[in-house]
């Protein structure tokens, strides 16, 4: 309980629980255990506005966080956030560092082998953003060019397998990747289209030349493999919340201020886990 706190007060207990806790427990916590502890540990992004980020006051915000708050409320506990890198999202579950990942986690076959995904609450395809001066409008234009991506994202696997001629420049964090694009270290940046759309809107001089690339993928919460109790709870929640159009509300709160009216919410939001 003497762990240090940075910008995120909710993380205060983390180190204590990790150091003193049952060190051999890679087995996920049951729903009861979570309830008893009064806290659910959720991995979110801390630098991927507007999905998961830390605002100017040091509070976690965003589309994913909005959902996490609701889940915790319905479970009768408080959420405890852990900041993750894209590449760490599987490991934080397998090593039981968190109960739940709500970090814009795109469902893929490889990932499904390692973790259990709940029903989707969002859908995306990849988008590519590039400077206005040299807009990339077709994926084939990328051949021989340098494409910035964040490690562990679907963009990485997609381009790695389908377009081996594209030179990938990989960063650990989204913030780094954006900065690299701003500084002209690559010709374009690709990640989920929602994300690049939001970013291009805020950054003058950049355009999303390719808005939809690859298959439409879904984004879903993930739990440790075999943690059916929690998985079922999350699934039930998604279905239940879908009935009140919860995710549209989430969209309005977190995404609309950024996207404005350029994007149709139904292109992004998935209600009740049904595409």
């Amino acid at each position, binding site marked *: 309980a003497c762990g240090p*706190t940075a910008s995120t007060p909710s993380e205060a207990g983390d180190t204590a629980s990790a150091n003193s806790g*049952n060190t*051999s427990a890679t087995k996920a916590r049951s729903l009861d255990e979570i309830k008893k502890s009064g806290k659910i540990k959720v991995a979110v992004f801390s*630098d991927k506005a507007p999905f998961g980020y830390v605002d*100017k006051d040091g509070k976690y915000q965003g589309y994913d966080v909005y959902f996490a708050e609701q889940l915790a409320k319905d479970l009768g506990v408080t959420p405890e956030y852990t900041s993750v890198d894209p590449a760490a999202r599987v490991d934080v579950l397998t*090593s039981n560092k968190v109960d739940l990942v709500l970090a814009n986690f795109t469902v893929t076959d490889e990932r499904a082998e390692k973790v259990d995904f709940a029903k989707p609450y969002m859908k995306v395809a990849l988008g590519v953003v590039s400077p206005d001066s040299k807009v990339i409008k077709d994926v084939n234009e990328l051949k021989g060019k340098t494409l910035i991506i964040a490690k562990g994202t679907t963009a990485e696997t997609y381009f790695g397998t389908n377009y081996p001629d594209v030179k990938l420049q990989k960063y650990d964090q989204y913030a780094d990747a954006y900065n690299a694009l701003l500084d002209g270290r690559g010709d374009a940046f690709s990640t989920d289209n929602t994300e690049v759309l939001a970013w291009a809107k805020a950054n003058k001089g950049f355009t999303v030349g390719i808005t939809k690339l690859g298959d439409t993928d879904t984004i879903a919460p993930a739990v440790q493999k075999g943690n059916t109790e929690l998985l079922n709870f999350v699934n039930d929640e998604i279905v239940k919340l879908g009935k009140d159009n919860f995710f549209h509300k989430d969209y309005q709160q977190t995404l609309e201020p950024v996207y404005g009216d350029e994007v149709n919410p139904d292109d992004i939001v998935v209600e009740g886990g049904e595409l």
Partner: protein
Amino acid sequence: MQGAEILLQPGVFPRLLQGLWVTVWIAGVSVGLSVPVGLLVGWLMTLRNPLIRILMRIYLDFIRIMPQLALLFIAFYGFAQAWGWNLDATGACVLVFVLWGGAELGDLVRGALESIPKSQYESSYVLGLSPWQTFSRVILPQAVRRLLPASVNLATRIVKTTSLAVLLGVVEVIKVGQQIIDAHRFEFPTATLWIYGVIFFMYFIVCWPLSIVARRLEKRWAHD
């Protein structure tokens, strides 16, 4: 200069300081735990037992030759898989820094103990001091003097190496900086320059006094 106002935004500095506190906390705990580990390792290394010698040699050489970042990865990703250790990023950092600091400090302790001239033991014997009196009154105080400057330098290195924690996702000063850069990227496009610059000097301000202390100690005790 343009963009520097970011540093004056409400919350920016306090949050950076909070982040710095995490850095200092990890370093402090690691250094604190390294001391007993280092003393133990140092003592083990002076033993004649060949098995202990070989084990200590391997431990020291492995820790020395692996980059600290690689060790962090091994602890963070590897231990969880191999033995099911549930270490969070902060725990992995502390574990690695203690193993590393313990090894380096152990070697310093060994060096200090072995550098005490034999004549010190012999005069103590002739004066009638018991082995324990010899160790506690004569050998240890001298060993500590020889040890201290290098140990303080080691602490500086541990503080610096704490920066790697960000690559495991620990929310320390650099990560906080990145969050701030991200949150202000529309108003302050040049935030990276200023925030990274400030972090650079924050590390400097933590480490520099330690370096000065080490140098003072070295000068003061150079004669024996």
